[in-house]
């Protein structure tokens, strides 16, 4: 059999615990939407104990050479010139129009070695932009398996697996362990969490060790649905869902800038030239077309409207991903891109992009049985959920 999607280095383990064949595609791999029949427990573990996620499908590039640091600093919008070995940073990177190409993390593994993660293939983009820099770019996506352990107990579990060094790891720090693997304090859940970067040959061993130690802490393997709920609560954006990457957009209007995606904090216009700087400086001065907001949809009224006609209301437990128009009193002012019921906050949340200066009181149309009705969608500050333990 040849025509199959790729499987990650952890596949023998993930396949064994898959209960309902809920696989999905991610970056050319089959990965789990949920291992259990529903993703409830997987999500709850992430907020109350810890959840183990196979995120190997991320693209990973290793950048070395005398100009590696300078090159990356010029590539991305964030000022990473001060990054020390053991440091890590989240950042978007843009094309010359200031449109986001991708977003991910950069870590400095040692003096001259950096690693960049991305949601989409970026090898060509990196190469093109490396013209004039003395760097070597290597696609190590398939060499390295990545596990994310997210949740309040994640620190205890990893300390048991790898020793007390884990406890010293600061938010967005990365350390080398056992010769050939690294642990970073990063993740996509908006909670306390870590990511473990392992050579693919050791993938199963590491999975087993983490699961073994995690047993006492109610560790639960989790799929993408659980992660998606958590990242919406955390107000973290996702490529292809919340924005179309610049090089995939058919028209410029389809692509987004960091300011439009709520990533203005990661654009450092004071640093020397970087790709997209001119356009972003202009946007900063002139204002953006859109801005990212969190929305809280009035689920109580949604429930009432259902009750009125004798129906139970539906809870969007599995996050939806589509473009849904958002209105003020007069007209459409933007669009939501994803939404989910938050079991932690007990609220119906959505991420949206709206015109700057729009009212805080917006509306969204939702089907109640067979008829469309308008409901309140209040603008809320992001992240919706931000526990102190994330950085603590």
């Amino acid at each position, binding site marked *: 059999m040849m025509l199959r999607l790729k499987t990650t280095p952890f596949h023998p383990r993930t396949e064994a615990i898959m209960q309902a064949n809920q696989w999905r595609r991610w970056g050319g791999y089959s990965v789990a939407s949920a291992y259990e029949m529903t993703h409830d427990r997987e999500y709850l573990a992430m907020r109350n104990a810890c959840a183990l996620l196979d995120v190997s499908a991320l693209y990973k590039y290793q950048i070395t050479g005398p100009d590696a640091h300078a090159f990356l600093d010029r590539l991305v919008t964030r000022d990473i010139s001060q990054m020390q070995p053991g440091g890590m940073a989240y950042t978007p990177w843009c094309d010359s129009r200031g449109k986001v190409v991708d977003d991910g993390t950069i870590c400095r593994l040692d003096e001259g070695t950096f690693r960049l993660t991305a949601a989409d293939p970026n090898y060509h983009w990196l*190469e093109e932009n490396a013209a004039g820099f003395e760097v070597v770019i290597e696609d190590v996506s398939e060499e390295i398996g990545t596990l994310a352990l997210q949740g309040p107990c994640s620190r205890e579990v990893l300390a048991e697996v790898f020793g007390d060094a884990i406890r010293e790891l600061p938010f967005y720090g990365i350390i080398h362990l056992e010769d050939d693997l690294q642990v970073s304090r990063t993740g996509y859940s908006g909670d306390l969490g870590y990511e473990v970067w392992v050579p693919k040959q050791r993938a199963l061993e590491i999975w087993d060790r983490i699961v073994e130690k995690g047993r006492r802490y109610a560790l639960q393997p989790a799929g993408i649905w659980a992660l998606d709920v958590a990242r919406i609560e955390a107000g973290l954006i996702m490529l292809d869902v919340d924005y179309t990457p610049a090089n995939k957009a058919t028209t410029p209007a389809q692509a987004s800038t960091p300011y439009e995606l709520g990533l203005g904090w990661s654009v450092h216009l004071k640093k020397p030239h970087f790709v997209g700087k001119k356009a972003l400086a202009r946007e900063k001065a002139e204002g953006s077309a859109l801005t990212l907001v969190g929305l809280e949809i009035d689920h109580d009224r949604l429930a009432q409207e259902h009750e009125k006609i004798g129906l139970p209301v539906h809870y969007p437990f599995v996050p939806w991903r589509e473009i849904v128009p958002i209105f003020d009193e007069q007209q459409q002012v933007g669009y939501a891109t994803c939404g989910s019921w938050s079991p932690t906050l007990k609220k119906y949340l959505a991420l949206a992009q709206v015109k700057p200066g729009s009212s805080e009181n917006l509306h969204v149309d939702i089907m109640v049985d067979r008829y469309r009705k308008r409901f309140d969608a209040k603008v809320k500050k992001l992240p919706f959920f931000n526990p102190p333990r994330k950085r603590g």
Partner: protein
Amino acid sequence: MKHYDAIVIGGGHNGLVHAAYLAKAGRQVLVLERRHTVGGATITEEIHPGFKFLIGSYLISLLRPQVIQELELAKHGLELLPLESTLVPLTNGDYLADWPDHDMTRRELLRHSRRDAETYEEFSLTMRRLSLAMKPLLDLFPPDPTSLAPRDIEQMARIKGVLGHMQRKDFHTLCRLCTMSIADFLDEWFETQPLKAIKCTSGIIGTFMGVRSPGTGYVALHHYLGEIDGVRRSWAFPKGGTGAFAQSIANAAKAFGAEILENAPVHQVLIKHGAACGVVLEDGREFYADRVISNADAQRTFLKLVPKEHLPDDFLWDIQRFRSASPACKVNLALDGLPTFSAVPKGNEQLLRGSIEIAPSVDYLEQAYDDAKYGGWARKPFMDALIPSLLDPGMAPPGKHVMSLFVEYASSEIDWTPEKKAQFLEVVVDTLAEYSPDLKSKIIHKHIMTPHDIQEVFGITNGHIFHGELSLHQLLFLKPSPQWAQYKTPVRHLWMCGSSTHPGGCITGAPGRNAAMELLKDWSA
């Protein structure tokens, strides 16, 4: 004797589309086809008992979706089976495949080149944007940019509107693509030989130019303008072959009230007081109508069917030098079973359901052209192969197969004696057998259409599959002659609706439809 509103000379797919639109608008239409059946170059023939051969065209992509909808071709029998993959077997035993899936194709390309795997997406997106921008031009009559007539100015504005939506960078790419050779253009994107080669082939289909000849970039773009169910750059096999497609249009035309007469070769267009008023057949029968529309190619129409004295000299001169030398042959094989290809790994046989391209490198393609350009044939020809019986079992008896091979280059200038035909057929089979060792043992019957045969059987001058080269000097407002590029001709009431007119050859239905729109407008004016 019955007097028609319109007589269409030729029942090729464009003639049929044209007739159907006129009939749909309530006109009395008669189609006169010289052969025993309509279809022209879109035809399926049972050359060997039980085996249906595609002696002309074989795949559909550029067919305008409006034609399918407006003529209700599905109701009249059209069924399109999309092709899913492209396979390029290589001489070193490896292969390159375009899988039906994005992730699979990316992985396949990664095997060959990491860089190309990534550029591929950018390339596809760029080509998609270019074809999106260009596509509306297919459905517009080409305006004359030197004319001050309101209709030309209006149309220019419309085109400006279409192109004005393009991003600047794309517009620059478009201009370069149209004027470059396809090989040079692709050199800027890719490094993998077979990938470049396979992408090059769109630039030379039907064209007597090499992959390194400037202008082949445009031909490639032409082939990118197609779509099946909105999927760009995809090809489909019509169930029953392209002949069944032609029959579906004929059925539609008849349902709208058109009459179709087969075995009716037109000898001459009848002209009275400078205006066409009918035709006379080779057997002497005469038919009269207010308008006569020729589906035959421009050279056949104006050098054979219209008496010279009715045509201006400069127009005649344009038509005489219209470039139509052709390099394309068509080979069909009846096979006792499915041939195997040494490059296809076990378990991947599904790749045989798609296109199979004998195009291992850019040099291979250019060499094939070099061999033929002085009036010879390629010693190792380029081939675009398809096994239609894998898609539609009705094409061959159970367990047996037919294989269709589009072959280049073999010059229309060769004196195609039966011996030469047999020789070139051997060259084709030998070349293919290098990739499929058991091919020869499975051949029950083989059949070739040389450019000469295409001329004789389909009535196309020099056998040029597009009714004349798709090169810049004879496109848009220059097709087939400046000032006569809007389906009208220098003879009043004589119109054109075939592939020599905008937007040119391929199964598109566009010349037929556009000409009908213009004629109907002109009629009511």
